């Protein structure tokens, strides 16, 4: 298997923060808040990359808005 013919190869991004929602409406709702100010890139209608340096603020804002987000990659839940 070779990918040499592709215009560009793979891109591997490490240590970023992601928000994934159950549906697009929920994501729109989430991005209407603080998380929207830190939106780096939209990957799909339900997945976005957010500013990893603002991870704590985003989490705090989500909780304040009444969400109980599922957390992955936290040292201690």
């Amino acid at each position, binding site marked *: 298997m070779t990918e040499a013919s592709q215009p560009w*190869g793979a891109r591997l991004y490490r240590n970023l923060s992601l928000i994934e929602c159950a549906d697009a409406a929920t994501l729109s709702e989430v991005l209407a808040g603080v998380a929207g100010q830190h939106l780096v890139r939209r990957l799909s209608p339900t997945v976005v990359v957010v500013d990893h340096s603002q991870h704590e603020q985003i989490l705090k804002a989500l909780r304040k808005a009444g969400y109980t987000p599922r957390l992955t990659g936290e040292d201690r839940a």
Partner: protein
Amino acid sequence: MSEQAGERSQQTVAQERLRGALEQYPAVEIGTLLETLSPGATANRRKTERIDLLIRLLSDLAAARLALGTLSPFARRLLRVAHRRGRLSLAALLLAGQDQHHSEETVRDELQDLVRRGVVIVEGNGTSGTKVPLDLSHPTAFLLYLWVPQAIGEALIGTDDDLAPLTPIAQPPAEVVAGAFALLRRDLYLALRFLKQTGLRLTKVGEPHRADIRKLLSAMQGGGSAPPARRSDGAALVEGRLEFLLELLAATDMTVADEQHLWAAADVDRFLNSPEPELARRIFDAWLDLRWSEFRRLNDLAIESWTYSGAGDLPDQARLGVARRAIIECLTAAPSGWIAITDLSERLRQTAPEFLIDRVPIYPPSYYNYYQHYGHDNYYSSRQALEQIYYRGFARADLRSRERRLRKDQDWADVEGAFIAQVIAEPLSWLGLVDLGYQSVKHRADGTPPQAMRLTELGQYLLGKNLCPAAAVTAGGSLIVQPNFEVLVLDALAHLDLVAQLDSFAESQSLDRAAIYHLTRASVVRGLGAGWDLTQIIEVLTAHSREPLPQNVQQTLTDWTREYERVHLYRDAEILEAPDAATLDRWLSDPALGLLLPRRLTPTVALVRRETANEVASILARFGVATKVTNYALDQPQVLVMPSPAQIQIAPEYDDPYLRFRIERFADRQADSEDEGVAYTVSPASLQRAKAAGQSIDDILAFLGYKTQMGLAPDTVLTLRGWSGFFQPFQYAHACVVELPPTANWGDIVRVKALRPLILRILSTNLALVAEADWPKLAAALQHRGIILHEGLQIQPTMDKRSAAQQMAADLGLPTGRDLLAGAVGRQLRSGQREQLRSLQGSQLVDFISNALETEQPLVIKYQKPNERRATLRTVEPHELEVRGGLYYLHGFCRARQGERVFRLSNILGVALAAE
């Protein structure tokens, strides 16, 4: 055959021991003893022959049995006590022998008689060259050791003595505190739960942090009630018990400590859920050698430092283990029922007087040599010997001066007796081995030691007096879930496994015989975060429940779980982006790579399993795919170019969405091409937009300073600050500059009241500003005073001003430092290099200087030490860059100072390459 050989060898050792002791006897005493045991045997025998004969007589078992037959039961008791520990001091035997029928004198006479009969051997304290006095009435004789020959010891087996068995007290105590192992189990569980969730901070010496101890106490009391006040007796008791619990957990390997914290071990649930007898046995065995001192908890004793020879009488950990076992042995021999604690204390005194503290301290032989030098009858030696009758290292807490000292021959009840009561009242009661009996409720409340004790069923089992206690059986389910989300665990201490499961997803309200929990959204989310799912939670609640799970509880749990799954926030996620969906399809179907990509997030993006990014990259490399790795944990510097304050360019190789996101917060994208990268424009409007979004100009400048390849030029900084509205308006007005000749100064003029208001600002001794409107008035006033006015300035550059010494040097044709500096700087100024001085910091400055070192180019630096008022310009030929104590230093030849100099990089305010 080997058994016989062993027996013979044992006999030889015993005979040698006898010989060693008898050789220390005075010759007269040897004769007397031999004559007592075998009348007429002394005739025509020298001392050595007499000793040989005595050894034969004292080693004869038949003769020993005959001799024992002639002794009283009391004498046999003394012999048994002496034989028990192999060797005992006279002081200990005098203490053990005393009872209501035998005074100290009676015991001493009895022992003296035993010594005369040869059934007790006297031994000195190891001092060589001195004979052992056999007179036990001598004031210092209590320091001598007594022991029983082997044959006598063997003959003692099966004989009776006058020690009556312990008897239960006739009247049961009025107030009883039942020993409850369940209580201990609950507290161990609560402590472990705290350690599992929070951990306990440790100080530098490894002790638990006091603030955390208070938190742990609060957690163990259900969180509702506060622990007792710090200095109260209650606090001492509660904290003492907590310390005991923590030591027990450490001794049973249920805690692990790193450098800063104490945590619960991994398999604590298995430990706590083991059957009660098994758990109790493990804890009891741990207590026997526990690193914890009941002795230090005796309130009536004050521990004092002991600086003299020896370690003092404070029992160490090994001795405490011996003492605990002696008490347990005594309890094992006691009958069932209530036993007076004073009776237990007396029994230990009579059978094992040194179970806790030796009566005669072990000193090096040199100590005894010292006092024996003066002879036993000398005042000082007698006094020194008598000092040995006091306990060393502690005293009565409530008295002062000499009265506080405790005597080993008189204060058994206050020391050893109190220790026995302490062991029974605290650890044995806490472990659930004994019930405690008090004279009254008041006595108990006052903290008076208990009057009596009784072994519990568990205690009898652990001491081997009873079979395993029957386990309690709970009928039906042990859980009740109520519609108000309250969860009740019946007989919780018997279901700690269930309690531990509930801890994961419910809020604990209380834990006693029954445990109360509350299901809340936060607690369920916590459980889901810890790996539980809805099915598991409902299964736990229904499997142990007596009734079906209330409908509203089940529905709410489902809603909470659905809500939890709605938004998923990933921290430190790793994703792989493929150029197109078909490529990602192929990668996901690859057996090796597919395993490392657990989920596909979009058609072209997949989530990478944590910490496998390098593995993914290496697999892709094997496929021939060039992988660009962007690690957001590393903020890469010098990736931008700023040709002017208004332009930012990202080179294609550095282009990445996060970098774009950061720039677009204060700049507008202009162009985006694969060959030339992305270009942005910074404008007053874009900077105002950033400001409105909460981004300060300092943040933007710090970002650009770090990210631009050559750092920010001063003009760029000034421009961006200006565009952002950083500066307040600059004020200006038309004014005249007036220069005075060297013969005048502005002080002469402002002293004239009429002229003072006409001067706007004095700039230096010879320069001042005068408002344009005021100048005609000032000019007229000056001319009126005969001062001639010329238009034009003759301001001389400061560099040209010379002191007398510099002038002299110049006259002699020698260069001064200022000349050299002026020359160097002058060149810089002439070539316009001063304009290019850049204020670089940190890694940018290091990189700049490193480049200069590599290309061997001299540098011009603006340098100012913290203690200097002005910066100086230096031209430096760099030789070396050194890192010392976390700081960078530049070594080089300074042309201004004409010598080797060292410059700290943090003092360099500006830097540029010097023109040669």
